[in-house]
């Protein structure tokens, strides 16, 4: 398949593995964080760690939009879905995320109508064909998905739709990265930058990571070779003592981002003073809400939500996993009480969640490719 197979070429991967291995300084350990859950998914789905020497460890970051939604917001969503005549729509990933009284699937079994959509625009179709119902789109995601929510609201406004609203849970990536950089219990050598987010925000917002924190950032694409090449670019910077922002994903990511997308976000949404992140706690100016001009489309205002903060289950260590302090399998309940079929924490739900990716794809003896194994022995 064109535009896919060329980025999964095993021959090129072996060559990159050799180049990465050659850059490893003896005795030095390298911890690189892939910020984005999409990268985590790719890494495990393709068995990419088999190409890395033992000295290079990938740490999974907070960029899984489902994983960072706190339990209280899931409860709020279910409260909205339970209102009379409401059809709630959301992305498929959300359907199994546990709230304090079960998931959306359980809520549907008990009578709500929560539907999976691939695009927020599908919610408008549902709203048009169900004029007697009130359609609420549960919007989640980083700057990646915020523009499509914004466009949907703009279109609903243009059409004069009165039975559509958004339960806005959009979050922004930079405050989360900053929280991790400021976290005392983590030492990272560099960042594999989130490619999809960067198609919208560009590469400039990461410059503080390189200049203020002295850590290199390489914005990466989502095919396995993209990630492997980004790791090579990070290792090269580290070996040369550089810390810069580089763009591996230039075929998609413009340095200055997508001006139009940023404009529609700004037109419809504004920063919240603070927002709770699962595992990371409250982070100021880290999430978006609908602007006042679009209050008619703001489900939080239209219906009201309980907004009760629910503490994460005690056994759950999603926070440590999201910050990269713990490997998924180091969590106390990983694979026993918490599994993809009965998740306690959000990281075990989304295919982008580190725990789900590791459980579904990764938990196996790894056999490194010869190029990577060689350096591990030295």
């Amino acid at each position, binding site marked *: 398949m064109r535009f896919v197979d060329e980025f999964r070429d095993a021959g090129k991967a072996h060559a990159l593995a050799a180049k990465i291995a050659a850059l490893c300084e003896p005795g030095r350990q390298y911890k690189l964080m892939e910020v984005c859950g999409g990268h985590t998914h790719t890494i495990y*789905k393709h*068995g*990419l760690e088999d190409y890395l020497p033992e000295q290079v460890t990938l740490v999974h970051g907070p960029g899984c939009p489902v994983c960072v939604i706190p339990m209280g917001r899931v409860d709020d969503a279910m409260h909205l879905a339970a209102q009379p005549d409401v059809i709630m729509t959301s992305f498929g990933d959300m359907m199994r995320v546990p709230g304090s009284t079960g998931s959306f699937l359980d809520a549907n079994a008990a009578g709500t109508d929560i539907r999976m959509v691939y695009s927020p625009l599908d919610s408008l179709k549902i709203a048009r064909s169900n004029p007697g119902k009130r359609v609420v789109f549960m919007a989640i995601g980083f700057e990646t998905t915020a523009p499509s929510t914004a466009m949907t609201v703009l279109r609903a406004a243009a059409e004069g739709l009165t039975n559509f609203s958004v339960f806005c849970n959009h979050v922004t990536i930079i405050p989360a990265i900053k929280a991790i950089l400021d976290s005392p219990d983590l030492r990272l050598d560099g960042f594999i930058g989130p490619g999809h987010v960067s198609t919208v925000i560009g590469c400039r917002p990461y410059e503080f990571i390189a200049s203020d924190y002295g850590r290199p950032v390489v914005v990466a694409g989502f095919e396995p070779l993209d990630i492997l090449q980004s790791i090579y670019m990070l290792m090269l910077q580290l070996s040369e003592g550089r810390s810069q922002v580089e763009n591996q994903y230039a075929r998609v990511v413009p340095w200055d981002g997508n001006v139009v997308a940023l404009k529609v976000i700004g037109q419809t949404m504004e920063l919240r003073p603070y927002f709770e992140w699962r595992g990371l706690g409250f982070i100021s100016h880290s999430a978006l809400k609908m602007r006042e001009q679009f209050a008619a489309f703001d489900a939080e205002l239209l219906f009201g939500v309980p907004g009760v903060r629910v503490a994460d289950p005690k056994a759950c260590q999603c926070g440590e996993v999201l910050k990269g302090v713990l490997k998924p*399998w180091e969590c106390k309940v990983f694979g026993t009480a918490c599994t993809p*079929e009965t998740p306690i924490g959000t990281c075990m739900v989304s295919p982008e969640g580190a725990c789900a990716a590791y459980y579904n794809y990764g*938990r196996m003896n*790894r056999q490194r490719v010869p190029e990577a194994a060689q350096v591990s022995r030295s």
Partner: protein
Amino acid sequence: MTSGREQQVLDRIDRARRRRPRVREERITMSHGAGGKATQTLIEAIFLDAFRNPLLEPLGDSALLQLAGARVALTTDSFVVSPLFFPGGNIGDLAINGTVNDLAVAGATPLYLSAGFILEEGFPVADLTRITASMRDAAAVAGVHIVTGDTKVVERGKADGCYINTAGVGIVTRDQALGVAQARPGDAILVSGPIGDHGVTIMLARGELDIEADLVSDTASLAGLAATLLDAVPGVRALRDATRGGVATILNEIAKAAGMGVVVSEDAIPVREEVRGASELLGIDPMYVACEGRMVAVVDGSQAGDALAALRGHPLGEQAAVIGQVTEGPPGIVQLKTAFGGTRIVDLLVGDPLPRIC
């Protein structure tokens, strides 16, 4: 290699997974019908628990009975596919082929079927006629007769047009004892053709995705293909038809029932470009997508070539392929060698990407 601590975690998971299954939900959710872990839990914790007997316990595609000296296979299947009509077939073809295939992969010659209909008030008679015509034609192709049936009508809104249940019996005349528990290290694993056509066709036929592809369902009777393979190759250990949960689910059943490992190569698994493309776009894995006319065969490794030739000699098996093999370990685990050159686990499906596929 994994560290000692990581191994402990793997062992812990293994122990947790061997625990007696329990349905934790208070109500049935769509996951319980998806053919993955939740379905398996429901079957074992509720149905097997209530009905337990030695004939049911293997949970095979068909039950194998001894009746007056004859060996008889019995199976049943219900069909709730949406939409009822789709490229390559309709609910009627599926209802015949699904039951015929459950018999065929048990090594039986399918003979007689029952057909039960649950119809919704207001359902067009013309649609019912199209469905029954397809059933008649599919039965003729498979060499079976529909010899008994039942009809119920429910009020508008209490069903979605038309649901069909079929049951079937077949006779087992060969001596080969088939079953996924028979798999041994070194056995070859084959699929009879490209995977995932049916599931992706249904998904696109719903028209919710605005994706078009030149793709038709693979619904077909496997009776002839299974017989051809069994006649040609004495070393067939097991046959399964890959329906809900796809080929990945069958591979897991092999690994678990046999207590062996299974290793397959992504490169070797036939997948049409259209299916790959749609799956990439939708974030689903063809390994988990339903087929309705494909089977997985476990064959003595030394006879893999004969098996492949036998399958490819049949019109339904022209694109058959050897996709992997059974290994001594790790027990119960299916591993995929990715085209990229890495390794990953292929577990049972948890979520429900495609409800009401058959």
